[in-house]
């Protein structure tokens, strides 16, 4: 065997082994997806059945009597509007931090600190305020909370992207008579569009996956999809096919988004300290 053949063989063996490890690691997720296409009796069978007659009963159940589509719509509307608000507010703030020469140390530190606050430590006062304002179980309250808790992350991330834009571009545009807003809108935003999109995707995922605030602040009208899944766990047993089906519906778009944006994923999760 020539050395190139040997190298090729080695690469093949390594590939197979690593894919084996990957599949092994993903068994909990694979099992979850299979559960969505399986009768609950098959799910509970021992030895486990990897091969079974696939069924859509779980999907029929959640999109029939449970009206899961309605909760999905709530989740989608709330997460989309919150994301839109976040980008609308975070982008100018990030621009000002990078370009307008403000010594906003206090503001910088307060957004880092705000990022570290555990959700549960603000959930009770927010619940009380929601009662006072009559906002329990409304879109508005979840949108306001989701937008605010994700704002520090978004400002930080947008700031990192704006810093990659050469400052000379701004100076040139200003000399040519552009207003600051025009520079922001026509120079910085287009150049950082990819970064803004990545930021938006991560904010959307965070809103889409959130349970605690939805659990506390909503119960029917504005209930989100993760909250609806809590109810698949009933007193007379857990409907595994419904949970599997709901999980497939809920997690597929998130996985597609995250994989598409993986280039930015780590940068975002570490607030830019790892590129």
């Amino acid at each position, binding site marked *: 065997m020539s050395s190139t053949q040997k190298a090729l063989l080695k690469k093949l063996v390594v590939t197979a082994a690593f894919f084996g490890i990957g599949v092994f690691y993903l068994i909990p997720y694979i099992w979850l997806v299979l559960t969505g296409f399986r009768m609950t009796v098959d799910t509970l069978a021992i030895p486990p059945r990897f091969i079974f007659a696939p069924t859509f009963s779980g999907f029929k159940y959640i999109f029939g009597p449970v009206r899961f589509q309605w909760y999905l719509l709530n989740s989608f509307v709330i997460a989309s509007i919150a994301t839109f608000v976040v980008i609308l507010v975070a982008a100018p703030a990030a621009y000002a931090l990078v370009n307008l020469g403000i010594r906003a140390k206090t503001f910088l530190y307060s957004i880092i600190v705000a990022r570290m606050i*555990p959700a*549960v430590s603000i959930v009770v006062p927010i619940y009380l305020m929601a009662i006072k304002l009559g906002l329990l179980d409304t879109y508005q309250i979840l949108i306001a909370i989701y937008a605010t808790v994700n704002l520090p992350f978004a400002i930080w991330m947008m700031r990192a992207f704006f810093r990659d834009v050469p400052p000379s571009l701004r100076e040139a545009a200003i000399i040519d008579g552009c207003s600051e807003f025009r520079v922001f809108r026509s120079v910085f935003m287009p150049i950082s569009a990819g970064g803004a999109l990545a930021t938006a995707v991560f904010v959307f995922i965070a809103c889409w996956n959130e349970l605690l605030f939805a659990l506390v602040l909503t119960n029917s009208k504005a209930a989100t999809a993760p909250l609806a*899944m809590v109810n698949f766990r009933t007193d007379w047993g857990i409907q595994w096919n419904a949970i599997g089906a709901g999980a497939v519906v809920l997690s597929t778009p998130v996985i597609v988004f995250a994989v598409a944006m993986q280039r930015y994923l780590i940068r975002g999760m570490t607030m830019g*300290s790892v*590129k």
Partner: protein
Amino acid sequence: MSREHISASSLRGYLWISPAAAMLILVLALPMIYSLKASFTASSLLSPGSEQDFVGWSNYWQTLTDPEYRMAVVTTVAYAILAVSIELVLGTFVALMLNETFFLTPVLRSAWIVPMVVTPAIVGLFWILLYDETHGIFNYALVKLGFSPVPWLDVNHAFTSIVIMDVWQSTPFFALVMLAGLQSRNEEILEAARVDGASPLQCFYYLTISHLMPYMLIASSFRIIAAMGDFDKIYMLTAGGPGLVTTTLSIQTYKVGFNTFDIGRTAAMAWLFLLIVLIISGPLICYLGKTSDAER
């Protein structure tokens, strides 16, 4: 630039950050100030008018002397540190693996992202099935391998089970951070070390591990802080039970808040929790603040 110019531009700058500042003040700062005030009262949703009933430090004192609270602190810290230590080691190995050359690299790298982004509430809910004593695939595998089945969610094992669940979900985060670290390594130095006769073990220790050190610190800091606040998946899997063995500070604060409606007490717990998290994240906050200044 003249002084007037600077002050004019910074005034405009504050205008640009004002919507963000307004949101943070209205939706985060105000409720927190409200809860700070409430933490010094006997406020309870069950007795009207009690929010004016000032009791001094009594809520804090009661919380700090409560054995259940101390247990929750220990559980939270143990959960975060144990899970993060395992994730760090496993994640580094996975990163070394993903850094090798093989076919279809992007496919495999993407696959490791999946656990990170699956809704935590679903992870908690679904792991009930995986951990099931008779129907779960974990026990099936254990029995096949000749071990006796484990009652994963009983008093003796539930804590280990929440740690394992988090290890599954968060190891990919460490793997991807370490992978970014490995890819920023200068291959020439590695080559030079080899030529100079360094053993593979020496290369690994002095060049790989020491190079990854800052990445390890950053990933661990972020994850420890997030793990201390974990609620969704623990709540769905065990809801803090059986007994109190998986009751972390998040679960306990939630339960005291929404089972007893003792607002004064909950507010004190929330503030103590925040204080603990801020102390632990102190170094990270300083690091982020400092590096952000140095960059530009």
